[in-house]
């Protein structure tokens, strides 16, 4: 029998990871390389909307149909990543009635369950909607956690024998006789899970076939083989609110436009977005006015947004692609569909296919199509099972349980943890060790953090995306140091410090465009706290090992504590 082909996938976003899982489940050998941590690219910087397809129901019905299909699949296989919030397309008085009708018809044509409700009914569902919203269309939009979904896909791929390498950048393609035969890879910290300070190195990864799933970066990989992939990266801003102003996805029912959607996500709500073409997917301006403008526009739908606290803003780039002959001027006109570019057919370069465009919601379908394509190349007849087999964490489980009795957790914390962990909850949370809350804002306990560390090594940003620790309203002000302490034991002090630095920087970065009002108070408090209690402003011990052995062990439990004498009389205060 023929040797099992080895497929190299470049890119650890939703697209790449979906492909890796699919191929691995079909029994192929798979290696996935990602330059950052999982979701480092666009996948980690998107809106978290599980599209019903409603958004594309008028202008891009092919996409819309794919969306509703995949929407149903993901609700099934990724229950622990999805919250079925439902969605509304709301019409304000100044919005076109004609378009509202088109939207409704479009949804019906694409098989998207849609119904019209009155303004009052919409406000009964969402009390903070603007008073003058006239009516709305209900659609099955949902919220989806991209981090959890990608991590679950990676875990499943690994279970099926795939090798996943993060912090490993493809620096070149190995091309022999007009065929791509492997990758030149630069590991930042050795292979396997990331541990700071581990010696990195380069590796040549030979493969029978290469898949370029680098999204907005696809052109760069193309350049390595002199093929032209005209991805048109387009940036969009998103702003995270401290709390949920709405519990349903709210879309504005308008042909197109910036700032027209609010997605409830976990404890927060995320506002979005804009659409503006950029040159470089890694280096583009992020500007405060984009945030201001978005809040200004969205308050027409949900007035209380104007006063509400934002905790963070971030930008992502869409990996839009359009076939060379279309030539749209406006990025919003570019199709949201995906394209499979077989470089053999297209550029006479064997051994590689690129997949570009598409959406997060359709990642699995994209994976299926490209896996079919690869299997056909190798004459393998294996069926796709990704639509039927639940992801790890989404096998039968119930969130309704007695958290205090089972896990010793307070109920909202237990509930949150179980929602995140899904069917892995018992395995992770049943511990005989003390299990204090490490991140209060998001209700993350030590057991969950330790589980994430086990999966991802000393990379605290990888722990963050697995657990949501440090993603709440204090943005890590209180828990970054605790998370770093959790590394200690297994990892040395200097590794913990480096990981801590990295996490803090990442947390500060997103707050730059949220520094007013309450989040400014928060930042000021965090700064004061970090500098006065943790020497973060200028730590003499940074880089110089501390002689912990020189400290004594403090007062022992038996000794009586010193009591200060307190004056019983509060004294005179009013001065009269």
């Amino acid at each position: 029998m023929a040797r099992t082909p080895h497929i190299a996938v470049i890119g650890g976003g939703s697209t790449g990871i979906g492909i890796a899982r699919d191929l691995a489940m079909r029994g192929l050998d798979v290696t996935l390389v990602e330059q950052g941590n999982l979701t480092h690219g666009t996948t980690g910087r998107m809106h978290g909307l599980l599209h019903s397809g409603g958004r594309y129901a008028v202008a891009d019905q092919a996409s819309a149909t794919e969306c509703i299909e995949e929407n149903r699949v993901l609700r099934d296989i990724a229950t622990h990543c999805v919250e079925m919030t439902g969605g509304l397309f709301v019409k304000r008085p100044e919005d076109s009635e004609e378009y509202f009708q088109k939207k409704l018809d479009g949804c019906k044509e694409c098989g998207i369950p849609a119904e019209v409700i009155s303004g009052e009914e919409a406000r009964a569902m969402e009390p903070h909607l603007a008073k003058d919203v006239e009516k709305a269309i209900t659609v099955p939009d949902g919220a989806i956690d991209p981090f959890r979904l990608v991590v679950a896909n990676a875990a499943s791929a690994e279970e099926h024998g795939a090798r996943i390498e993060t912090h490993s950048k493809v620096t070149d393609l190995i091309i022999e006789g007009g065929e791509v035969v492997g990758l030149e890879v630069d590991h930042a910290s050795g292979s396997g899970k990331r541990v700071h300070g581990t010696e990195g190195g380069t590796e040549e990864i030979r493969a029978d076939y290469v898949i370029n799933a680098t999204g907005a970066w696809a052109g760069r990989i193309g350049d390595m083989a002199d093929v032209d992939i005209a991805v048109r990266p387009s940036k969009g801003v998103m702003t995270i609110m401290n709390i949920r102003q709405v519990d349903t996805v709210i879309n504005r029912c308008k042909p197109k436009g910036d700032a027209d959607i609010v997605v409830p996500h976990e404890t927060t709500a995320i506002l979005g977005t804009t659409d503006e073409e950029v040159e470089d997917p890694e280096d583009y301006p992020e500007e405060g006015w984009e945030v201001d403008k978005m809040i200004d526009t969205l308050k027409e739908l949900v007035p209380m947004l104007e006063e509400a606290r934002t905790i963070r803003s971030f930008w992502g780039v869409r990996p839009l692609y359009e076939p060379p002959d279309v030539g749209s001027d406006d990025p919003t006109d570019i199709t949201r569909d995906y394209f499979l570019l077989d470089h053999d057919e297209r550029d006479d370069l064997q051994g590689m296919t690129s997949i570009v465009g598409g959406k997060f919601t359709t990642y699995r379908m994209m994976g299926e199509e490209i896996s079919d394509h690869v299997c056909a190349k190798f004459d393998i007849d294996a069926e796709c099972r990704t639509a039927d087999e639940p992801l790890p964490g989404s096998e039968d489980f119930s969130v309704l349980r007695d958290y205090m009795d089972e896990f010793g957790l307070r109920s909202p914390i237990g509930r949150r943890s179980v929602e995140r962990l899904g069917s892995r909850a018992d395995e992770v949370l049943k511990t005989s060790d003390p299990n204090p809350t490490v991140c209060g804002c998001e209700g993350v306990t030590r057991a969950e953090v330790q589980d994430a560390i086990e999966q991802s090594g000393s990379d605290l940003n990888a722990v963050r995306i697995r657990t949501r620790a440090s993603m709440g309203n204090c943005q890590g002000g209180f828990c970054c140091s605790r998370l770093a302490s959790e590394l200690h034991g297994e990892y040395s002090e200097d590794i913990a410090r480096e990981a801590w630095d990295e996490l803090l920087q990442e947390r500060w970065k997103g707050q730059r465009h949220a520094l007013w009002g309450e989040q400014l108070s928060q930042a000021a408090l965090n700064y004061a706290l970090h500098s006065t209690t943790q020497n973060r402003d200028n730590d003499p011990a940074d880089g110089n090992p501390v002689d912990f052995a020189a400290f004594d062990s403090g007062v022992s439990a038996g000794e009586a504590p010193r009591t200060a004498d307190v004056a019983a009389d509060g004294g005179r205060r009013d001065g009269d």
Partner: protein
Amino acid sequence: MSDAQSPTDFDPVEPNTGHDFEPVDVFPDSNDFDLRPGADSCFKCSVCDTNCPVAEVDDDFPGPKFQGPEQWRLKQTDDDYEIDDSVMSCSNCMRCDNACPSGVPLSQMHNTARGEYVEEQMSKTDIEYWRNRILSNYRLSASIASKVPRLSTWAMNFGPARWLMEKTMGVTKERDFPDFAPQTFREWWAERGGADASRRNAQQRREELGLDRNADRKVAYFHGCYSNYNTVGVAKAMVRVYEHYGYEVVAPEQKCSGTPMFANGMLDDARRHAEVNVSSMSDLVDQGYDAIASCTSCSMALRQEYPELFDIDGIEKVSSNTFEAVEYLRIHEDVKADVQAAEVSGELAEEFAYHAPCHARNQGLERQSVELFRDLDGAGIEDVGESCSGISGTYGWKEEKYEKSMDIGEEMFEHMEHADGEVGMTECPTCAMQMEHGTGYEIRHPLELLEAAIVN
């Protein structure tokens, strides 16, 4: 005359809903208040936690930050989220409210969460539910007991009965139930001639003071349950002191302020009582009366908790016209000078160990008694510090909370022992119980001393 009978000097007008009042069901039930802005304001500083007396002694209590903004934010996703049962360990002292530098409405968040917990998660057949319900409906028990005061005082403190109460209901047997006065305040008030008599007394005093005989000086007294059934002397002192300054007093129809019900999550009970109180008080406020309470928890309830928790017509008006008794006089009269000029002798010529109740603190009143009485000849006053007394109404009456309640009170007991005198003073009747319980001192109310100093 029953205690529920209204004073006779005003005609209750039609329900005061006004012309253009359209009853809209804005908050279909009281638990639906939107606490989003409050949750936005918390920046996690934990100052509330460090001020919480329960968190200090109870390691299992997660503290106000968790109970309030954190839990609210974590449980937003859907209606299935449960409230953590630790919310029942909060004593509702409201210190956290006062401590928060960022204006987070912590007690409102606790009260709402507690209400939701009791409503949706506490079994209505549970002994604890009924114990809490009985404790928080003190007014009902007291109104029955006071029909036969002596018998009640004896029976309630009868050893075997107390043992049984602890075993079956979880009411600690360590504490003595308060004595019931032989005559309630309202009985005394009616016998004395009610509002008419008070008006005559006030008019006479106004003439003596050189004021217009018909000067607009009138207050509606919210005496609460305790000074009606138990410390009747306080209520009488209030009336006499106010009349002394030429104020006519009315004692309108009223029920429990709701304080013990908030603390036990019995929001429906509290709302029923609040509706009566707000209705009768708002009518009077319309007629130019201010509402005066002699219990700092009652004034707190009317001022802050009512508008935070209920949407009852007239509630804002009542809230902004409610005052604590000594506070009101200090605003409008030169009581300080009168006290300085006075001398007290007899029973109240004592050194007082004064404790400021948490709820007085929340209203900014923690220094008023010390400031008022420290220059009074014949008596002394010493503040015993900032700690909480630990009883917090019904909290310290629960068998499972008794020890913690006494732990919290420890600091106060010690400071009372260190203070010069052997008599305590405070505005809050349950703090008074705790002070007495922990030190054996007799406890007086500032109004009683004020009466002794300036009336006559």
